[in-house]
């Protein structure tokens, strides 16, 4: 958050228009582009906002693949997109007025995977040597320190679909360990070096509920148990993990491309970054 936006927030009140930068992270083929597309569709269909002009081409490209019945292609570059949102759904029903621009980036999962592999092997960032992975790390660090929160997408059924369907719990914990633990370690280390990380909400979104067939509460409980130690560490670093929301976003595309759980995710996201003005229902 820039100094100007801080001053504007101080003197202009909380109803001033806000620009939120919330990157979406996750390994390749976990559903980042799907979430972006679904967010855009959800906001547009329910008259909650609109896609910015600059992001129109990205959404158009993604929609063309869905319309043709093709899977979304892997993201090859860092795609920026923006959503102008003027109201958000409330958990108890109704809507709250907001005036904000949700800015995010679709980051290639391959780069994220490379970064996590490196973090897993060598969690001490200070000892990293110059190279392509270091460059990605620097870019990620810059992104994380300049954003207002993060969305992490976790693919629970990555290569373990049959085992999870058979009721085994260990693959779920392994997915947490493989996909979340390295980046949590990275966040903890980054927070040691950069205090800007504090008080930022982190959202963990678990994709593909149609494949892992677990109830949201079950996923939430597994996550709380498997990640108990790093979650407590994040709380100790004043990173706002109390606001994270574990929801199955539900990428089961119906005709309207209206994802499940998007409303709750959007509502919690907006509330977590205090974008809802005072006095709103």
């Amino acid at each position, binding site marked *: 958050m820039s100094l100007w936006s801080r001053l504007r927030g101080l003197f202009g009140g909380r109803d001033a228009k806000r620009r939120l930068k919330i990157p979406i992270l996750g390994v390749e083929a976990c559903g980042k582009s799907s979430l972006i597309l679904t967010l855009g569709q959800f906001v547009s269909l329910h008259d909650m906002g609109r896609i910015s002009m600059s992001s129109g081409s990205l959404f158009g490209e993604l929609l063309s693949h869905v319309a043709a019945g093709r899977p979304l292609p892997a993201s090859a570059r860092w795609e920026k997109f923006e959503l102008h949102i003027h109201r958000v759904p409330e958990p108890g029903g109704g809507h709250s007025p907001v005036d904000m621009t949700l800015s995010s980036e679709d980051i290639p999962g391959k780069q994220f995977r490379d970064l996590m592999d490196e973090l897993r*092997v060598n969690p001490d960032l200070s000892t990293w040597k110059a190279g392509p992975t270091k460059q990605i790390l620097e870019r990620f660090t810059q992104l994380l320190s300049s954003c207002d929160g993060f969305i992490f997408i976790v693919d629970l059924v990555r290569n373990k679909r049959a085992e999870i369907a058979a009721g085994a719990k260990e693959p779920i914990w392994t997915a947490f360990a493989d996909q979340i633990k390295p980046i949590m370690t990275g966040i903890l280390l980054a927070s040691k070096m950069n205090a800007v990380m504090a008080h930022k909400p982190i959202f963990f979104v678990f994709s593909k509920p149609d494949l892992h067939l677990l109830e949201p509460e079950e996923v939430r409980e597994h996550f709380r*148990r498997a990640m108990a*130690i790093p979650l*407590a560490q994040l709380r100790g670093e004043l990173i706002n993990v109390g606001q994270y929301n574990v929801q199955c976003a539900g990428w089961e595309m119906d005709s309207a491309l209206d994802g499940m759980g998007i409303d709750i995710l959007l509502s919690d996201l907006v509330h977590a970054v205090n974008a809802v003005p005072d006095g709103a229902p």
Partner: protein
Amino acid sequence: MSDVLFRYLLTARQRDESVFRRLVLADEPLLEAGVEQLVETTAVRVHVTSQHEHVDKRRDTVPASRHRSVRFFDAPQPRRPQDGHFEDRTEEFPLRDTLQIYTCTDCRGAGKVRCRTCSGRGKVGCARCGGSGKAQDHKGRRRRCRTCGGSGRQRCFSCRGTGKVTCRKCSGEGQLASWEAVIHRYATENRSGDEYPAAAQGARIHRSFKRWLEIDPDRVTNLERATVIEHLGFESPEALEVVARADTRRRGMEEEAQRSTGRFLFLRADCAVSPVGYTVVRLDGKPRYYWLIGRGEKALEVIPRGRLDPWKFAGWLGMGSGSAMAYEGVAQTYSFAQPILELLATSVYVPLPWLVAGSTASWLVTLGGLRRVRLRRPPVSTVGLIVPSGRPTAFLTCLAYLGSYLQRLQVLDRAYDAQSDQLLGRMRSDRQSESLSLELPDGRKVRLVEVARSHRLSDDQLRLIAQALDGVMILEEPEQKAEELMERITKLVRTPPNMTALRIDSEQGELRDPPLSPVGDRGLPLEGIRRAFVGDLQREVDWEVLYRQMWQPLAELLDKAEASRQPEGTKT
């Protein structure tokens, strides 16, 4: 591998008030050589900053009109830095009396000089035809040059045919202004030097690494004896000798600063004092120094120059790698060994925390001297969980996960892969010890060290381990009795640590229904807790009760340890 570790890495801690952590290699020749004698002294870094004023004169010459934009002074009016404000700054004072306006010597007042390109002729040779008047057309035929019209000459591009250009010296004004300026330059000069004990001659004590400064950033503004002693926390003749030598050096630097070129304005002397401890070991009649710089957890060990035994050093690396291999798996070995290998490559120094980090059992060593260390922060309490003769238990893992899950504690160790593997039942069973660092909601920090197969430890090893601990909790299996081990420790140690026992049952893999209230005669079913925590989401388990049963004896031990640490008058 851990047996090797215990054989070679043991703490030698005295029950004195030393501020230093002690690490020695406690093999027999070294012990016989008297390594337990630690000389407490100090290293002093002296830094003298001085402010000087340098006064120079300079003559400036500009076209006459420009002197109007210059502010002239009748006399220099320097604004010297205030005492203690070290500045690097330059001030200029053009003097009004010295201002002269005179005719330009180059153009003699005309403002124009002859063009050097055409030598005043106004024409130069044609660039296209080279002065021949004929040039090739697009078909290669030689025709009359269109640029110069066949004359071979063209107008000079510098003077545009006039033969004269504007005088550069006076910018065409014909007159120049000249004056003399007095320049006052304020420069900060730094002088620094380190003083070490006389025994450090020939030893490699590194001054450049930043951690040395970070260890003790407090500064003393002078080297008064009382201040130094208060700062160090101890008084030793050798330390005071070093301080006196540093004081002499400081005075020398101050005198040198005052004799420096330029007018001396003021100076400030800063001194950073860092406690240094060393122990001398005589092996085969040759002295060998082991140095410790700084205090507390960040104390560093410095390798003596030219006296480093490569086999011993390799042994340290092997111990570190081996212990990591034993406790955290082969995969972690390489990540652990990486910084040490890098350090070896740079061969500068071996920071003690790097040397022993990753080796869980070596916490016993590093913590050996911490109990009596005067730290400004609350001390870290260390509790040993000793399993008399059985295999390692899942106690630490269950405690870490349950405490974090219930938000009762925070695990400080970053590498929790071992805990995760243990929870998923993938831990190797041949390990002997494991440690876990915790932070409690009230800010206290606790380090728990589990030592299994304690029957393998010799009396010396067990004694030194017990001395390094603030409390001992014996994890008692149904067929084992804690009293036997307690008696052994009591016999070995003159002032034994507080001890308690907790009954556990590593065999029982299922929780009872209703679970664990009370523990029952079989003890705490750690395996059942682990399995229930991993997989059984449907079953209603009162995790609070389980956690309380695990934590309660530890909390009592910690309270006792804190009570014993308080001074006599403040005990409640």
